[in-house]
């Protein structure tokens, strides 16, 4: 066998292995998609049904305000909350990270303390936060949910961005100071452009976290600030779980994260490996 043919064969083997991997990893998503287009009677059958006539009744049900489910409200809530929580987090975390990285603000261990917020299981916060929310009338408001997501996104973003800023030689800033840049100008015009891809990567992760968050959205909202994930929980009813509807809602909910992921893919790879390859 010629060298080229052998190489070709090897590539095929790699391709098949990768394909199998992709199928295994994505199996839940594929299953959900199939569930969403299955007729109701097939969904709950004890033996999996592979061949059926696809039917989009569940999707239609989502948009027709069937029951309590208000798709457009939930979708716009999810969108507004996730985008705001992401942008605000970046806006607050970036200067904080810069300050911690360059000026050792609040001591050497502060950044670890900030991150440690993320180490506590979120459910522990639920009771005090529900009380606080009731007290300040934040329950069932978008602002309330945004605030909650910020408390998760800011420490994470701050921690990651901080380590990227630390990787940039300080002499770069000194060079800019020598020519009269202010601290703010150095941060926005010198350091920010150099950490752009890290910021994009972190923003994408924050967005996906906010979009997918379920627990707080479920507990702290009733009608007005229900997000898509919390809304889908309505299909777990007293009469049984409506798998078809949940699956349809899930499939639609996945779409924006896929879009964001595709757009941001190159930033994700570059941003998260930037420190490693330098």
């Amino acid at each position, binding site marked *: 066998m010629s060298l080229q043919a052998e190489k070709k064969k090897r590539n095929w083997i790699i391709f098949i292995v990768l394909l199998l991997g992709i199928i295994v990893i994505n199996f839940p998503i594929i299953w959900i998609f199939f569930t969403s287009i299955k007729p109701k009677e097939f969904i709950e059958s004890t033996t999996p049904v592979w061949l059926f006539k696809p039917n989009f009744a569940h999707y239609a049900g989502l948009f027709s305000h069937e029951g309590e489910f208000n798709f457009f409200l939930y979708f716009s809530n999810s969108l507004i909350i996730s985008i705001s929580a992401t942008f605000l987090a970046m806006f607050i975390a970036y200067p904080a990270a810069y300050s911690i990285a360059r000026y050792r603000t609040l001591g050497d261990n502060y950044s670890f303390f900030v991150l440690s917020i993320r180490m506590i299981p979120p459910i522990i916060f639920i009771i005090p936060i529900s009380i606080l929310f009731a007290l300040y009338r934040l329950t069932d408001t978008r602002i309330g949910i945004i605030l909650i997501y910020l408390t998760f996104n800011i420490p994470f973003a701050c921690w990651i961005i901080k380590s990227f800023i630390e990787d940039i030689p300080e*002499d*770069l800033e*000194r*060079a800019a*100071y*020598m*020519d009269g840049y202010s601290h703010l100008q150095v941060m926005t015009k010198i350091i920010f452009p*150099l950490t752009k891809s890290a910021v994009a990567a972190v923003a994408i992760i924050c967005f996906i976290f906010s979009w997918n968050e379920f627990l707080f959205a479920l507990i702290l909202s009733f009608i007005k600030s229900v997000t898509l994930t919390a809304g889908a929980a309505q299909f777990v009813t007293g009469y049984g779980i409506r798998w078809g509807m949940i699956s349809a809602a899930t499939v639609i909910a996945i779409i924006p994260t896929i879009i964001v992921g595709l757009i941001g893919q190159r930033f994700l790879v570059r941003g998260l490996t930037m420190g490693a390859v330098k």
Partner: protein
Amino acid sequence: MSSIKLKDIWKIYGHEVEAVRNLQLDIKNGEFVSLLGPSGCGKSSTLRMIAGLEEITKGNLYFDDTRMNDIEPGDRNLSMVFENYALFPHMTAYDNIAFPLTVRKFNRIEIDKRVKEISNLLDLDDLLNVLVVSCGGGEKQRIGIARAFIRKGEALLMDEPISHLDYELRMRTRGELARLQRLMEITTIYVTHDQAEALAMSDRIAVLNFGELQQFGTPEELYDSPENLFVAGFIGEPPMNFIPCTYVRQSDGHRFYTENMGFDIKLNGNKGKLIDEKYNGRNVVFGFRPHEVEIVSEANRDGNTITKAAVFNFEPGCEHSYVLAKICDIDVLFECPQNVRVYENKTVYIDIISKNFHVFDRESGKSILTRQNSS
């Protein structure tokens, strides 16, 4: 352009780390001064204090007669070249070079003219539109130098600008820097740990160690009359040899000997060097440079300035060879002409060329030689 004066400058990090101690420097207008010392000696801290990038803990900094302590770095009107280039990676070479002018809002035509001029001088014309990340080390530093020279400020500060370059490039850039500095006649402070670099480029050198100024003088002064052991050992390649011994004053000169008499030489005192009477019979350190000895044949072994050395290593070289030997168990290194072959584990006799010896107080490390004609 201005003179720079450092008066009683201290830099203390935290509460105890004294990086710079009571530094006095008076740098003249247009002068090229090097701050030389091993790492951690305070040279970079000093430079950054002059730049305004670090606060001065105590003392005063003057440009001409203006006190500069509280002036922001951007308002001090200085340019700086950094060790790791400090170029902005997201900009092209052109934008980097033009940066000091763009920030100061020069008009576009003027900027363009000056960038072209300086890049022509530094042979950077072909690189102007390239992103600096794709340039090599030497090119990056030339861009850094161009950025510093594009604007004639009060002074130019350089922090080990060429230490990351390989040998050949370093030699070339060194020449280029010195040439540009003379061309622009700009006051320059150059930080380096490489004594050869400092000796080659500077008008005057300030040698620092442990945050203290050891000596401030011309390259010749530092080399010919080092004020203490540190300067003597730091300047010159290979470094000076030191032999701890006892000094005795004699009617016709100086005698230096070790307890076991393994080293015992008498030098003529009338050749321009005097030692204070009070050191008579005291412990001193005798110093001589590796090239200031001559190997003599065994027949001449009895001269006053001749001593015995046990060779333990011989390094042949192209121009001259190096001999590593022990005089009374003290390692010394000296040069011998290329045509002389010395054998390991043999004893040789060396003549210390008497006019260029150095003597230091063993406790303080200060030089105790005074030149006859200077005092």
